[in-house]
C-alpha cells in the first residue's frame, strides 16, 4: 500500500442551519426520488414550503435522509417501514436527550 498520505484540508459545516434544495438532498443522501416522496408523505421529512413548486429542506433533514437511505438499503425495507423505524429512532433520541439532561442536572453525576 502507498504509505505517503495525500493531504487535504476542509471546513466542517454544521447541518443545523441553512437549507438544501430538493436536488441537493437527493444527491447528498443517495435516496431515490420516489423514496424521498414517500418520506415526505409520511411526514418524516418536511419541505420548508410543501406547496412550493420546487421543495427546499432545512439542512438537518440530510441526517434523517441519509439514515433512511442506509436503513432502506441495508435492511432491505420498503420506504414506509423506514418511516416507521425513523419515528422510533426519533423517539429513542428524544428520550436519550431527556435522560442526558436529567443526568446533567444531578449533582455529582459523572
Amino acid at each position, binding site marked *: 500500500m502507498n504509505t505517503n*498520505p*495525500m493531504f487535504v484540508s476542509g471546513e466542517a*459545516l454544521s*447541518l443545523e442551519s441553512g437549507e438544501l434544495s430538493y436536488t441537493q438532498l437527493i444527491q447528498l443522501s443517495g435516496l431515490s426520488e420516489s423514496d424521498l416522496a414517500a418520506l415526505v408523505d409520511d411526514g418524516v421529512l418536511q419541505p420548508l414550503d410543501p406547496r412550493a413548486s420546487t421543495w427546499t429542506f432545512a439542512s438537518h433533514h440530510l441526517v434523517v435522509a441519509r439514515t433512511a437511505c442506509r436503513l432502506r438499503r441495508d435492511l432491505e425495507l420498503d420506504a414506509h417501514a423506514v418511516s416507521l423505524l425513523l419515528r422510533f429512532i426519533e423517539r429513542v433520541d428524544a428520550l436519550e*436527550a431527556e435522560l*442526558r439532561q436529567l443526568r*446533567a*442536572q444531578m*449533582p455529582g*453525576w459523572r
Partner: protein
Amino acid sequence: MKYKDYYKILGVERNANDDDIKKAYRKLARKYHPDVSKEKDAEEKFKEMSEAYETLKDPEKRAAYDQLGSHAAGQDFRPPPDWFQQHAGNGSTFEDIDLADLFAGLAGGRRARASGERARASVPIPGQDYEAAVRLPLQQAFDGTEIELDLTVPEYNDQGFLQRVPRRIKVRIPRGVTDGQKLRVPGKGGKGVNGGRDGDLYLDISVLDHPLYRVSGSDIYMDLPLAPWEAVLGTSVDLPTPAGTVQLKVPAGTAAGKRLRLSGRGLPRPSGPAGDLYAIVQIAVPTVVNDRERTRYRELAEGSTFNPRAHFAAEIASGAGRGAP
C-alpha cells in the same frame, strides 16, 4: 491479501442456499445495524457482515469467492494464477488490495465487459461518502478547533480498480459543536469518476466528559459547593466557565439544589443565542472540625430555632398522599 471467511461471518455453511444467506444477513443486520444497535462494536461488525453479504448474495461473485478456496481468517493467501483474468478481466496485482475492494470492483469489471470500456468511461460515478468519529474535549467543542484525521480509504487506481490509500485530512471544526452532532465536510470524501461529484466526509462528534462540567445540548451544568455559612449569609464566588472565570453572586439563604443560571454562558450555537450555564448549589460540610469550630457549631445549634424538618409533622397531620379509607 488477507483472507476473510464470509460464510463464517454470516454464520452459514459453505453450501448454504441464497435464502439461508439472506435470512442470516437480515437477522444479524437487525442486531448490528449502527443506526438501531447499541451493541458494542456494532459498526465494525455490520461493515464485516455487509461485505460478506454483498459478495455471497451475487451468484457470480460468490462463485469467484468460492474459487479462492478456504483458508483461515486473516491468513495471507494468493488466488489461483488465472483467477483475476477470469473474473476481473484485468491482470492487476493482488499485493495491496483488500478483499472487500476486490469484490466491489468485480461489479465494475463486469459492467465494463458487458458494455465496453467506452460506455463505462462515460458514466459519471459519484465518490463515496466517508464517515469518521471525532472525540473532542469540551473546551475544544466550545472554542472550535482544527483536527487532523488519518483515514485509509478505498479509491480507484489508474486501472479503474479500488485500492486502499492513506489520506490525511485537516478539518476546521466550528465553535459550539455538541455531543451527537454530525458535521459535513463537502467534497472531502472519495473522488468521483468520469465527472461524478466528489463524495463528502461526515464527522460524528462526541464530546468527552469533563471533571467539572456536564453538557446537555448547548447547556452546561456544574456543581457549586458552598460552605453552610456562605449559603446562609450569601457570598460572591469565582466560577470557572469555558469562556473564562466569572464572578457569581450567591444570594443569602440559598438552599441546596438551587440552580443559578448564567445566561448565554453555555455552548455557542451556529445560529441563535448561546446555551446557558447552570451552577447547582450543594452544601458542603467539613468532615473534620477542630475544637473551636465544634464549640461554635454547638452554640449555633443551641441558639437557633431553625428546624429543617418542620414540614414533616404538618404534612403527616394533613394526611396528604394517603389513599381513601
